[in-house]
């Protein structure tokens, strides 16, 4: 089974049913149209010699065109590599250059800076399919028409991908200062999607939200679960994805039945979304993942929207969801602790190990490790990092080390305790504090940089940069933030900067993060 086989079955059985809707722009594609346009893109990619084992990038705002791109690329046998259209062009060019994409589908508005950044990195530029804009699929159609009028693309056939063929590469924040590519196969994704089918029981008349951007692993559930079941997905674009009022309106107007997002988005809706003025009655399932959901906001949302079932899903990009926990109908008023991450998904196995890799007794803290068909193949072109990501065992299983410290409670339910390293989650995104530091060190005035994450009532975490400078002249906060925005996605820009004569050090002369953390 491959991911694009879901669409092919939808085309056969649900041809006229709506597959994709753009929430605010109004564009829509039924299964037949999505099938037809992705076939045409596949044919064009075949002209560019794209085939099994290749990677194809896309650099598009979230739209019908990006869904067509995903399926066109999969049908060609290649893996898709999405990038964040709101991130700096330098980061996106790095990603596509890093995994050697064979072709790129890009919007004209991004082309100039992206091409310039690719040229700086060296090597031949990949062929590009340029769309004048996005919306409703018509811009993909006109781009393909234009290319066909220059040289027609002969009909090719959809590649019958093998389970271990790569389906997509998702880049996440890397501790060394550069993003790293998590390689996931059709087997990885299909196993996860099948598990979702069993637990959430999707129906053909369901309407799924697609809130997460496509470079984020939450998008895998959003795209493939509804399409597998002949249902509809509602694309929520970057421009409204953090606007609680607009999101309430979308849930109500599109009669969303299954919602999935990071908890911080649900917190925003609970606080600022004026839920009482909107109709959430179609909602039957609310899923959240990516970070801890502060109980006060979860309770507030659930009190305002009591009908649906609520699930806390947990898992890094490397495994997708690996544990889950259903939130009880009533959250006791005196509960202050977040809910556990839950029990391991039925298609996976889990162990908890100590720093030597030995399994700990139930009830003791240790690192959660996961084995099974969801587990990634590795990091793109990083054999050492990949090897470090897995437990060295002789049982023949590949145990991925999540880096998350958990405790297994008596009933097989896991409770999240914290991180082993310096990664934090902000609005569901993985943020390696080291990557922010690496960017700050590029600023000419900065001598030392140490970044810490602090708890924050409204945002979950607040990122604080401690800096010491080369000379007395202090750069302005506006200049520092603007500088960061050229190298980092907006969610990684520090919220607060503080300046020190010199940063505190430990006895071994390393930056003393613990004392910086205590400074608050």
């Amino acid at each position, binding site marked *: 089974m491959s991911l694009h086989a879901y669409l092919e079955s939808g085309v056969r059985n649900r041809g006229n049913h709506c597959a994709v809707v753009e929430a605010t722009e109004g564009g829509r594609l039924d299964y037949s149209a999505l099938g037809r346009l992705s076939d045409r893109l596949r044919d064009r990619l075949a002209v560019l010699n794209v085939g099994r084992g290749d990677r194809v990038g896309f650099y598009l705002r979230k739209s019908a065109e990006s869904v067509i791109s995903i399926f066109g690329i999969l049908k060609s046998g290649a893996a898709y590599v999405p990038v964040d259209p709101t991130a700096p062009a330098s980061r996106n060019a790095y990603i596509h250059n890093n995994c050697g994409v064979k072709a790129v589908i890009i919007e004209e508005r991004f082309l100039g800076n992206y091409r310039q950044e690719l040229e700086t990195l060296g090597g031949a530029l990949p062929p590009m399919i340029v769309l004048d804009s996005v919306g409703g699929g018509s811009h993909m159609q006109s781009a393909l028409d234009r290319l066909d009028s220059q040289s027609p693309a002969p009909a090719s056939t959809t590649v019958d991908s093998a389970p271990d063929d790569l389906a997509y590469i998702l880049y996440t924040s890397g501790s060394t200062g550069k993003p790293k590519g998590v390689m996931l196969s059709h087997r990885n994704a299909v196993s996860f999607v099948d598990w979702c089918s069993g637990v959430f029981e999707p129906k053909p008349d369901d309407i799924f939200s697609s809130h997460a951007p496509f470079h984020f692993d939450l998008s895998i559930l959003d795209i493939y679960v509804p399409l597998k079941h002949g249902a509809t997905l509602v694309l929520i674009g970057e421009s409204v994805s953090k606007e609680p*009022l607009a999101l309430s309106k979308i849930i109500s107007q599109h009669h969303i039945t299954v919602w999935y997002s990071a908890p911080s988005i649900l917190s925003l809706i609970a606080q600022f979304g004026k839920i009482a003025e909107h109709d959430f009655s179609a909602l039957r399932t609310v899923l959240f993942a990516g970070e801890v959901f502060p109980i006060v906001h979860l309770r507030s949302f659930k009190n305002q929207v009591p009908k649906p079932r609520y699930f806390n899903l947990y898992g890094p990009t490397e495994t997708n969801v690996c544990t889950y926990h259903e939130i009880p109908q009533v959250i006791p008023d005196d509960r202050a602790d977040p809910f556990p991450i839950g029990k391991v998904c039925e298609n996976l196995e889990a162990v908890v190990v100590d720093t030597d890799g030995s399994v700990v007794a139930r009830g003791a803290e240790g690192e959660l490790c996961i084995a099974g068909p969801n587990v990634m193949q590795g990091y793109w072109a990083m054999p050492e990092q990949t090897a470090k990501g897995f437990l060295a065992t002789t049982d023949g299983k590949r145990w991925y080390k999540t880096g998350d410290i958990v405790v297994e409670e008596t009933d097989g339910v896991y409770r999240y305790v914290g991180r082993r390293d310096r990664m934090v989650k902000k609005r569901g995104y993985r943020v390696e504090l080291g990557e922010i530091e690496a960017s700050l060190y590029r600023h000419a005035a900065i001598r030392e940089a140490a970044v810490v994450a602090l708890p924050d009532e409204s945002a979950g975490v607040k990122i604080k940069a401690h800096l010491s400078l080369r000379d007395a002249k202090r750069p302005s*906060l506006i*200049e520092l*933030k*603007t500088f960061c925005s050229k190298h980092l996605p907006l969610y990684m820009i520090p*919220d607060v900067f503080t300046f020190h004569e010199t940063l505190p050090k430990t006895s071994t002369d390393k930056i003393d993060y613990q004392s910086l953390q205590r400074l608050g």
Partner: protein
Amino acid sequence: MQNPSDIEQKVKAYILNEFLPGEDPAQLTNTTPLITAGVLDSIATLKLVGFLEQEFSISVEAHEADSEHLDTIERIVQLVASKKGN
């Protein structure tokens, strides 16, 4: 009626106090990019909208809470002034 320079001063003071504590006020001009340069994140933008609604007794629509309308003090003043009928 509120005059645009009053609006400007109030907005500027709010942004400096709330989001840029310790910043030299001269660094924040009427054309400094705020949202697109990462000075205001999404939650800061919501707080700013809350402030504008309360301070100037206006209502900001969901589609207006974006960089197109709020990216600089100049644009914020225009938005507020248009709603106050200035």
